[in-house]
């Protein structure tokens, strides 16, 4: 078997060295009743690379590939072009098959990369510091809420209606166990975010306000007034960025005085992958750094006085603090953080700004074209690369019908908020640098037909 180097001779010789007669002797501690007499029944035996590849390719062929059709889905995962170098570099064995850098002398590759990643993320989000990544945006969002409770010693979190419903669902699930009280609401299918309502809702019991930027419908709002209102009541502002490319065009939440900024880094380097693995971004103000969850990489020197990097402030983490840890997260999303960082380095600031400008321009043109279709109304006047249309019919069946025609038309609000009649005609459309004018025209034409 190709992954097992031991030969039959090896096994016999090693058993002799050990002083055992058969391999079963080494499993002597397993109680008789739990010992299996042979390979587990009902499961196939080993297979060649060729056979396995064929089996998996058949499964892959049953999926509609985003790059093969006009594609307009967003809502927390975005299709961007990842430069060819990224995937080659992350497959270097020294990155792919390395471990968490607990022995820093022989892990400076990973550690320096993480230090660069933390800096890129902090600058992008506009925060003083950032950690070495979380599992994804939704768990990072939840960790921010619990961090706000630790910092403010209050337990009421107000979640904006514009926050991704999966992120809300995760928070609701976790809050059952932590005693956090959540105030949640639905988005409205209109031009405005709920910033004013959030400001009005903050009171002395509030630990934090959580707002998505741009929000689930694509709307953008100034967060500074919300930050001021939160701070006036000694609460924290948590901003959630699910599309980091947006920050190449719009002001960062950190600049608008957000205390904690979290996000989903998938757009850069990582690819859609049907939902994971992704990479959570987590940044905050300097004064809160000891309350941050997750791994942190810091600069130091070695015995020869050379600059080097190590994981640091580990007393926050559960392998040291056990029950008193700031979170139960152990791993981060190292390889995805590397992919994000490489893509960001290839882009650089000028490239990121250009990429963002292309995204926004394409989205503006698409919004204008689609708004001309009879039965289609553009709901969101401000947006980055994702906007919402109100159709003259329920959007979910329209998406279904267009999929049958080979068009992946976007995410219906009915898919995200089933049963909510007020939102049922909403369709969220994402446009990136990978979307062509032909794609938009194809969608517009088909929409016109199915809405007629």
């Amino acid at each position, binding site marked *: 078997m190709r992954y097992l180097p031991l030969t039959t001779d090896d096994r016999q010789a090693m058993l002799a060295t050990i002083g055992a007669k058969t391999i079963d002797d080494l499993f002597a501690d397993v109680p008789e009743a739990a010992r299996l007499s042979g390979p587990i029944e009902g499961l196939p035996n080993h297979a060649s690379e060729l056979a396995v590849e064929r089996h998996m390719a058949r499964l892959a062929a049953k999926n509609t590939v985003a790059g093969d059709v006009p594609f307009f889905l967003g809502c927390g995962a975005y299709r961007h072009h990842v430069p060819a170098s990224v995937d080659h570099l992350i497959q270097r064995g020294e990155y792919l098959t390395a*471990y968490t850098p607990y022995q820093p002398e022989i892990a400076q590759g990973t550690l320096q990369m993480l230090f660069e990643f933390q800096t890129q993320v902090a600058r992008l989000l506009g925060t*003083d510091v950032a950690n070495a990544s979380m599992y994804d945006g939704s768990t990072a969002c939840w960790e921010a809420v619990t961090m706000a409770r630790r910092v403010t010693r209050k337990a009421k979190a107000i979640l904006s209606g514009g926050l991704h419903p999966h992120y809300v669902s995760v928070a609701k699930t976790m809050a059952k166990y932590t005693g956090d009280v959540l105030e949640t609401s639905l988005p409205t299918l209109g031009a405005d975010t709920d910033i004013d309502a959030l400001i009005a809702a903050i009171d002395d019991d509030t630990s934090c306000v959580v707002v998505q930027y741009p929000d689930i419908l694509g709307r953008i709002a100034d967060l500074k007034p919300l930050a001021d209102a939160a701070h006036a009541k000694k609460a924290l502002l948590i901003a959630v960025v699910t599309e980091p490319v947006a920050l190449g065009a719009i002001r960062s939440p950190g600049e608008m005085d957000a205390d904690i900024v979290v996000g989903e880094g998938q757009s850069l380097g990582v690819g859609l992958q049907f939902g994971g693995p992704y990479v959570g971004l987590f940044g905050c103000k300097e004064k809160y750094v000891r309350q941050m969850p997750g791994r942190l990489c810091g600069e130091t020197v070695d015995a020869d006085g050379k600059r080097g990097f190590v994981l640091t402030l580990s007393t926050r983490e559960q392998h040291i603090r056990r029950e008193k840890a700031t979170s139960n997260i152990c791993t981060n999303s190292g390889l995805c953080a590397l992919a994000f960082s490489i893509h960001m380095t290839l882009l650089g600031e000028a490239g990121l700004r250009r990429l963002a400008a292309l995204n926004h321009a394409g989205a503006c043109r698409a919004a204008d074209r689609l708004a001309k279709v009879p039965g289609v109304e553009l709901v969101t006047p401000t947006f980055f690369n994702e906007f919402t249309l109100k159709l003259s019919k329920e959007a979910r069946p329209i998406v279904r019908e267009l999929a049958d025609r080979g068009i992946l038309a976007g995410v219906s609000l009915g898919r995200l908020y089933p049963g909510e009649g007020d939102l049922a005609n909403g369709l969220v459309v994402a446009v990136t640098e990978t979307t062509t004018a032909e794609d938009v025209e194809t969608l517009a034409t088909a929409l016109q037909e199915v809405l007629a």
Partner: protein
Amino acid sequence: MSAINQSGWRPEMGGGSGEGAPATFTGNRALMLEEPTIFEIGSTDTTGVDFADGDVAGSRLGDLTRKSAIGLPGLSEPETVRHYTRLSRQNYAIDLGLFPLGSCTMKHNPRLNERVARMPGFADVHPLQPVDTVQGALGVINELAMWLIKLTGMHGVAMSPKAGAHGELCGILCIKAALEARGEGHRKVILVPESAHGTNPATAAFAGFAVEDIPATPDGRVDTAALKARLGPDVAAVMITNPNTCGLFERDLKDISDAVHAAGGYVYCDGANFNAIVGRVRPGDLGVDAMHINLHKTFSTPHGGGGPGSGPVVLSEALSPYGPLPYTARTEDGHVHLIEEERAEEFSNEHFGGKLDSFGRMVAFHGQMGMFTRALTYILSHGADGLKQVAEDAVLNANYVLRSLEGTLDAPFAGSGPCMHEAIFSDAGLPQGFSTLDIAKGLIDEGYHPMTVYFPLVVHGAMLVEPTETESRAALDQFIGALRSVAERAKAGDAALKSAPHYAPRRRLDETLAARKPVLVWKDAPVAEAAE
């Protein structure tokens, strides 16, 4: 895992390497290359990506156009490739040599996994596409789920947790939900062995339980009598690792499970060490109610320098109804369903007698799909017979290491029988002034990543060695020789070990300084802010 500065070393102690070797202009030593940060070599005007020409007019950004500089350096493509290639060469990796980290299962990461994960039908698919357009992806999740259930002899599986610790949380929350459904939510105590990984009590505490330690016996296992004595109407669950963190099989686990169930509690099993028993023993046969599986350990998905992981949780019949959303289900017509919040109740009524009552959602979307394709590829490659051989070779290799080194290093449990897939040594017998840390750092100069050190806490100065099954006998012999040599040097009082490593890209690093004055981001020298 390493300790923080336990040896009390400071940079001022000196002990430089290569004394007498000539200095170089670059600071490089042939193929050992120094590499600055991107902030020192890149520029905000440089980009390694070409874009389509074309107008980018039009703005619907409100007043929120970014005006200030961000501070993101760019590099051309050749410079980028060189930067990350040079950095990569400062990392140890499985591809370079034996990686003896106990409880991490650093086995070979097959490249077929990488090829399959990158098939566009898996890589370029959005999680919110209509489910009819992703039947293959849902089919992968479902097929892997079936394998995990059969390999463990359990009833159901939660696929969404994103890592091992996340899986532990999932399992504990299923237990909590099951207790509440029985009207027994007042059970507030979880028993955890002293030898457990720190994530175990951290998880229990997060879920609102009080954690109580169970001591170990001199033969390295959980004290069954003490555990049973502590059971009562306030105990919700026991969290146990099997094989345990000392690399030993918990012989009494079935007995313990029976006692816990009789007392009204549940058994959570930390499945980090499943590599020792996969294909030979099923945790379901030992009475386990929930067990997380680390796909990045037992099932060869890459460690990636610290993630991403994947931690699906297999569940007993008692706990399966409470598993998180979403889950996949294959109906008789062959269609694979994705059950999210919307259809959960209806689907449960139609297909599960209305018994399902999920505790909720743990992550956005559906789980670590990229890890599922890799793990399924690996499982199909090995098959049932191959996986059984995996466990056997893993256990054989660890015992070979144990018996080869028990004359050199103290092996506290070597006298009482075989180990499983990992061998544990202690620092007993090392002379004054020499510690496990010195042996670990000396091993680096021999060309190895150190074994797990100072874990579990129940063995003094623990050294936990897990070779895995993907090591040849020659590779094992060389590792054994190296560790023996370093240990002998320690016992002989070789002072050079105190300042090891001498040959690594960096000498020992000052972790105390890093924690006292944290520098977590690059700070440019102050310049005037660039405004647009």
